[in-house]
């Protein structure tokens, strides 16, 4: 079972992964976006780590709700409300249980991803974070490792896609051939689950 400490480790591991990969995220974003994805997420997840340390929420749902709120208020770019909504809605779906199973997390994360789709008006194949999140939700019932691999594969599979949402969509066909920064950071978030479980 996964308790609040697991969810705090998940957020901390995501923050470390974002730190490690910030330059790469920004490079990907300079190809088809406005070159701020790495710095924005770094600022956001650093703030998440700090607020979780200060307030030490004691249920999985409360950890994710607080993390999501923090991302919305600190990121300053579109990834703030998108990741913030993902975590808040996932947290809301987990309710106030002290411990949840991996299967329950998969269901909740599915609700979170659906909220992201609704917020941004995107669907699978639009070259967005959903292209990593949706396959990860599917695979999470199996294992954390499978979810991580599915998210990675989903992010890689955005390379040949044409962007249909966000700033990258203004580039039309020129967005083809680049990996989507949002799908790439989503794969970091999902990959951090396995780290938190170890």
């Amino acid at each position, binding site marked *: 079972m996964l308790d609040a400490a697991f969810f705090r480790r998940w957020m901390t591991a995501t923050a470390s992964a974002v730190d490690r990969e910030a330059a790469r995220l920004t490079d990907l974003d300079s190809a088809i976006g406005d070159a*701020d994805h790495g710095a924005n997420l770094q600022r956001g997840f650093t703030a998440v780590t700090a607020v979780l340390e200060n307030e030490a929420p004691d249920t999985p749902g409360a950890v994710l709700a607080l993390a*999501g*709120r923090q991302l*919305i*208020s600190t990121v*300053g*770019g*579109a990834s*703030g*409300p*998108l990741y*913030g*909504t993902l975590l*808040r*809605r996932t947290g*809301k779906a987990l309710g106030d249980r002290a411990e949840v199973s991996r299967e329950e997390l998969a269901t909740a994360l599915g609700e979170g991803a659906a*909220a992201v789709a609704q*917020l*941004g008006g995107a669907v699978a194949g639009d070259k967005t974070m959903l292209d990593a999140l949706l396959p990860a939700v599917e695979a999470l019932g199996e294992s954390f490792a499978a979810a991580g691999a599915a998210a990675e594969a989903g992010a890689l599979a955005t390379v040949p896609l044409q962007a249909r949402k*966000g*700033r990258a969509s203004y580039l039309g066909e020129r967005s083809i051939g680049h990996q989507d920064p949002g799908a790439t950071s989503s794969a970091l978030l999902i990959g951090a689950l396995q780290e938190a479980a170890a």
Partner: protein
Amino acid sequence: MSGSAGGAGGRAEADEAAGLVGVVLVSHSSEVAAAVAALAIGLAGGGTTAPVAAAGGTPDGGLGTSSELIAEAAAAVDRGAGVAVLVDLGSAVLTVKALLAEGDELPKGARLVDAPFVEGAVAAVVTASAGADLDAVEAAASEAYGYRKV
């Protein structure tokens, strides 16, 4: 800039604006938000002007969207009759939607209005200043999509 603008200032003006719909203008750029607010107020003409607040850029002056500035602006123009929030694009749209969908950061009666930013702001401020309710302010701002220019 925030609060009601017009000539009188101070307490008397705040009382005149009681019951009027507030308007919040959210842009990636603080200059754009402030300038559009000034333009809309200027075109609203004399007399009582609805409370208008700009929420532009990030708190450190950069380009982007700040949920804190948006929440402050909405609170500043909330006179109990609702708040029409107009946005430019991208993260401004998503941030306001996310704030409205979850959480309690925005006042009750705050609404994202689907409208072109400049034309919609003028329509919203003029209509709100005339004492229209939030539905009418929203309709006027959205109708601005229909103004053909050629």
